[in-house]
């Protein structure tokens, strides 16, 4: 079967001073091929741990993750990643960053050059190929990160707070770009975010996770990502259904936070 199957995944971390933390407990989730799933939750709910397990950086203490039926046993180029910031290679130019994956795989130079040129145009950086990445703004750097990930043509793109460090306006623009790239490429995307609005706007499916132990609290199926192709983002985010969902999820997360605070003080 195609897509991602997360099957009974648990993750227990042992603390250096003794004691254990249940970062994830029996998480089950199926992600269809071509689906955009956003994952939301308060700090400590294990969402980054879950992403690291899917990426293959961490081995779960129980359960397994399968991609197209194959069990994930380590990192691989079929699962691309986009990080928050600072994951670009500052010693390379913009074009060389994007070409990193194909170059490591030993693809023909000419083919890679064409691909990089095309991708840079897609993310709106057509004339920036020869620049060093550190001369670019934060938003532009994240465009490079998206292009670098796409250059490898992965089956799945895992995004760990990719827009988290950007200012509000740039962030909205980049959400539009993520949506466009998703529609154009048909990639499966799992997006982790702290922003309720972003999770609602981009996710076809929205996973709300809860902490202690990290688990899936609720799953929403949402229409907004599809609407985003035709309607303006501002209109969607101001719509009554969107606002209602946002308030519902926000109060759910507030409750979780208060519960944690109660546990901590009580």
């Amino acid at each position, binding site marked *: 079967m195609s897509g991602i199957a997360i099957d009974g995944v648990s993750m227990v971390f042992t603390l250096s001073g003794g004691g254990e933390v249940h970062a994830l407990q029996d998480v089950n989730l199926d992600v269809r091929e071509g689906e955009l799933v956003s994952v939301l939750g308060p700090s400590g709910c294990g969402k980054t741990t879950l992403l690291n397990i899917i*990426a293959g*950086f961490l081995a779960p203490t129980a359960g397994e993750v399968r991609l197209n039926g194959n069990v994930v046993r380590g*990192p*691989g*180029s079929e*699962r*691309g*990643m986009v*990080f*928050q910031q*600072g*994951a*670009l*290679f*500052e*010693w390379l130019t913009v074009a060389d960053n994007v070409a*990193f*994956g194909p170059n*490591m*795989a030993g693809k023909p130079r000419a083919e890679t050059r064409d691909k990089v040129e095309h991708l840079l145009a897609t993310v709106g950086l057509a004339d920036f190929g020869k620049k*060093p990445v*550190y001369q670019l703004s934060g938003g532009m750097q994240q465009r490079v990160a998206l292009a*670098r*990930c796409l250059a*490898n043509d*992965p089956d799945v793109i*895992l995004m760990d707070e990719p827009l988290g460090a950007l200012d509000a306006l740039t962030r909205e623009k980049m959400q539009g770009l993520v949506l466009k790239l998703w529609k154009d490429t048909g990639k499966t995307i799992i997006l982790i975010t702290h922003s309720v609005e972003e999770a609602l706007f981009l996710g076809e499916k929205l996973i709300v996770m809860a902490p202690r132990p990290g688990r899936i609290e609720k799953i929403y199926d949402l229409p907004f990502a599809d609407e985003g192709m035709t309607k303006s983002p501002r209109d969607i985010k101001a719509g009554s259904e969107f606002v209602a969902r946002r308030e519902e999820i926000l109060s759910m997360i507030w409750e979780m936070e208060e519960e944690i605070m109660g546990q901590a003080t009580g």
Partner: protein
Amino acid sequence: MSEKKEPSDIAIWLGLADNAFTRQKTAKFGDASAINSGRFYSIIIVFGLGALWVLTSIAGVIEPFYWPTIGGTWNRIYLLVTEGFRGVPLWEHVGISVFRVLSGVFFGALVGIPLGFAMGLSSVARGLFDPVVEFMRPIPPLALIPLIILWFGIDETAKIFLLFLASLFIMTIAARSGVSSVRISKVHAAYSLGASKAQILRHVILPNALPEIFTGLRTSMGVCWGTVVAAELVAADRGVGSMIMIAKNFLQTDTVVIGIIIIGIIGYIIEILMRYLERWLIPWKGKG
């Protein structure tokens, strides 16, 4: 509203008036980034000291035994350049010292960089070498001279081995800290882009460590330059340090002073060259 008078270009160049940047300081005292060059005072002090030397030379108030006259120094420079010092041309004294430093730093880097990488990436290497490196680090290279003379005598090998040791530990520690400074998200990104372990080492960890390796090279150069002069004071027949020491025995204060000036100038040139090289080779330093 009264028009504010722009300071003249000369006043700005001399540092007597604030330039367009330092004028914007938001604190009258304490904003260290907005201090101007104060070049006027640099000029005063350099010319002042020069004038003092000229005046005392003319007046003849200082015994040449303590401090040479400017005329005597000039004559000595001429003699040193044309005839050399004790049969060895001046450029050879300078050249041999520089050669020793470059050799020492070269071998120090050759061994130290791989060693630092191994210590940063493997717990076996860290366990093996950590006690040695941490023990050797605080020992000044000069304290090793007696032992090295006992082992190697006083020939060229001894001096280069001493400088090798001086730079080895600096380079090892620099390379190790360069390796440790790699951000895990960069390594993760490379793995998820399909890079192998060897490719991660070559294309992520090495370039990421280069700025710190270069800082290590710069420090090594400085330390080795200081060490070579001191080592030559103890045991050598050629080199700037030995020139000073032998000149002292013959009470040639002017040669001593010239030697000291040469040491200062060469040290300064090394530092400037290394900074220039760094900006040229590693423009991404501090931009990660």
